[in-house]
């Protein structure tokens, strides 16, 4: 008996209502108190005492706190126990017990019709079954004391829509757990032309080594006419054992996937340095040089020395023009202006060079490894499908009692658990067909 009361407690919808209410109310806390900040921020904002209370109650990371997770787990247990307890009922309502129905109830239903016929019991039974089959109702029958009882149903499975919805919540929960246990998140800042093989994880506050490396070949920032960033684009490559195994151009909403990791374009940083590309047009050799503004750089092979000596804004915010000083040992040093991202030809006494200059960026990547995502997505899918079934599809049942009562009488009766007006029409049509068949 005691056992039973525990089960009843966990199966009760009252508990579900209570839990949903408590979850709704307690969730508010974490939207008011900022989550996951460092301890001194809370002390500064709320004072020493309140801050330590927050720590004790886990209010600073409440959504992963023991008490909040316990509430969620209770909801899951509630769901499981409640559903398990009700499934036998659902099986019952869709099974053979329909042939045991109290036949007195048939004539009391809203949708019923009593048809007299001159046929014998047996014949009437055959004809009714045939007519119903024509409309997609497959009948089962049983000889009852009161007469021959036929039963047919449509959409019996839709009774289980509710359980699809309820299971979907469990599936989403499992997916979230998988992500929590086996996944991690982090960020990478990779300056253009360089490689990184580790990500920084917030949760763990440490670097996580990857068993491959990411090379950022190039970062491009495009802007709207008013200067707001329009697109961030990074040309990335995956390097494994010194070889390039994969290249992909990523942008926001179009990440790179590799070995269970996903690399999202999330931000960028303009670096102080500039990237110069110089091509010696006579000897057909080229180089890329990173330079700091105001410092001199050299390119030995062509005996070139150069530097960026000044910078000026352009019409476009974030885009600059640079004044470059350039000397290849022949004649006089030259100076010229060049806009970031452009190239220009530099002619000296002895040579000709194609010179390009570009703002140098580091691309900011968000890295996620979450093996639970697909489980969560399956849960989403189940939830939407299940809700559709639960709210829009109905279970329709039809009984026909054929009895001897001074001649054969056929009593048709039916019901539907949803969309009753739709069923009433369906019922009328079906009875008309049966009536025709019986004549």
């Amino acid at each position, binding site marked *: 008996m005691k056992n039973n009361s525990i089960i009843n407690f966990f199966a009760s919808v009252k508990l579900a209502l209570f839990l*949903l209410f408590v979850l*709704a109310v307690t969730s508010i806390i974490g939207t008011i108190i900022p989550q996951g900040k460092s301890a001194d921020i809370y002390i500064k904002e709320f004072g020493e005492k309140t801050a330590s209370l927050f720590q004790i109650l886990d209010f600073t990371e409440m959504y992963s706190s023991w008490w909040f997770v316990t509430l969620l787990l209770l909801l899951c247990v509630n769901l499981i126990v409640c559903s398990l307890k009700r499934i036998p009922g659902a099986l019952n309502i869709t099974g053979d017990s329909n042939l045991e129905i109290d036949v007195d109830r048939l004539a009391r239903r809203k949708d019923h019709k009593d048809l007299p016929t001159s046929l014998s019991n047996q014949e009437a039974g055959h004809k009714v079954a045939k007519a119903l089959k024509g409309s997609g109702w497959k009948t089962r029958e049983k000889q009852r004391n009161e007469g021959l009882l036929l039963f047919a149903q449509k959409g019996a499975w839709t009774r289980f829509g509710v359980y699809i919805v309820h299971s979907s919540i469990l599936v989403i929960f499992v997916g979230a757990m998988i992500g929590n246990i086996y996944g991690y*998140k982090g960020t990478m800042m990779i300056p253009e032309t360089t490689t990184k093989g580790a990500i920084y994880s917030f949760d763990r506050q440490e670097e996580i080594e990857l068993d491959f490396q990411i090379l950022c070949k190039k970062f491009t920032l495009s802007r709207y006419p008013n200067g707001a960033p329009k697109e961030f684009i990074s040309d990335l490559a995956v390097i494994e054992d010194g070889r390039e195994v994969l290249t992909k151009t990523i942008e926001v*909403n179009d990440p790179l996937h590799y070995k269970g990791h996903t690399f*999202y374009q999330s931000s960028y940083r303009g670096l102080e340095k500039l990237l110069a590309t110089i091509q010696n047009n006579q000897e057909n050799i080229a180089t890329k040089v990173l330079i700091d503004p105001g410092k001199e750089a050299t390119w030995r092979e062509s005996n070139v020395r150069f530097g960026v000596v000044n910078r000026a804004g352009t019409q476009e915010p974030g885009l600059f023009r640079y004044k470059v000083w350039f000397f290849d040992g022949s004649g006089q040093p030259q100076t010229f202006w060049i806009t970031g991202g452009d190239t220009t030809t530099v002619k000296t006494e002895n040579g000709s060079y194609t010179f390009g200059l570009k703002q140098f960026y580091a691309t900011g990547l968000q890295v996620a490894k*979450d093996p639970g995502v697909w489980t969560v997505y399956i849960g989403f899918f189940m*939830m939407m499908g299940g809700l559709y079934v639960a709210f829009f599809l109905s279970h329709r049942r039809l009984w026909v009692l054929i009895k001897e009562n001074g001649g054969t009488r056929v009593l048709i009766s039916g019901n539907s658990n949803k969309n009753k007006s739709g069923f009433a029409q369906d019922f009328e049509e079906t009875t008309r067909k049966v009536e025709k068949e019986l004549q």
Partner: protein
Amino acid sequence: MTSSQLLGLTIIGYLIASAVYIATFLFKTPKAGVVATVITIATFLAQTAGIILRWVESYEMGIGHAPMTNMYESLVFFSWAIVLFYLYLEIRYKNRLIGAFTMPFAFIAMAYASFAGNIDQQIKPLIPALQSNWLIAHVVTCFIGYAGFAVACGLGIMYLLRRRTSNTDTKSLINSLPALKTIDDLMYRSIVFGFLWLTVGIITGAIWANSAWGTYWSWDPKETWSLITWFIYAATLHAWFTRGWRGRKIAWLSIIGFVAVIFTYFGVNYLLSGLHSYAG
């Protein structure tokens, strides 16, 4: 005509329609109700044109995107969805008095979008994270859901009013309202409608977040509040179909639920901070 002229007209149209619906109710003049319906439909068409035109204009400015991406645009869409849902109810259930309780929401949404000092009406370029079809799906589905909840709230208020005088005075004004049972039934349907769309809205939002940042859920205040709203309506529906709650309790829950909706949208933007701060 520009989109902002059309949307400006919409404010006036919905104001007049609301006033006429309320007058129809207060002075028991069913004929005026026809006028209200005509104004509502005409305004609704103008608003639809305005939304489409705004879309076209954004392409002409070279920053083309569906008009669903900031506070102003989402409020305009919210009001549009309320009217669409209301017109459906009016035609399906042949009752204009519901208009007196729901059209004001459509008007308020439009007026607030246009006159609140902190809402920017300009068509603005989108930052990269917002250039996503999932985002559009997210905003559209959420606001269809919110429209259902707004109508449910209007019906809830109507129910409580109707109930106060139900048996005492048969000639009273209030008794021209639909029967309690009808209101109750419509309230339930509106909540189911809203709940389904909110569910899809939360899911598309999660998928969007995952495609942009690799996190489908980060418990930021806006997400959390939409979940709170979802819990409230889930509880309401369970109370309905398993505990047999009807009428007054459901009416109150539909009002409380809508308060949570409003808070999800405004409270979070103005009082709390989070990822969705773009929406200001």
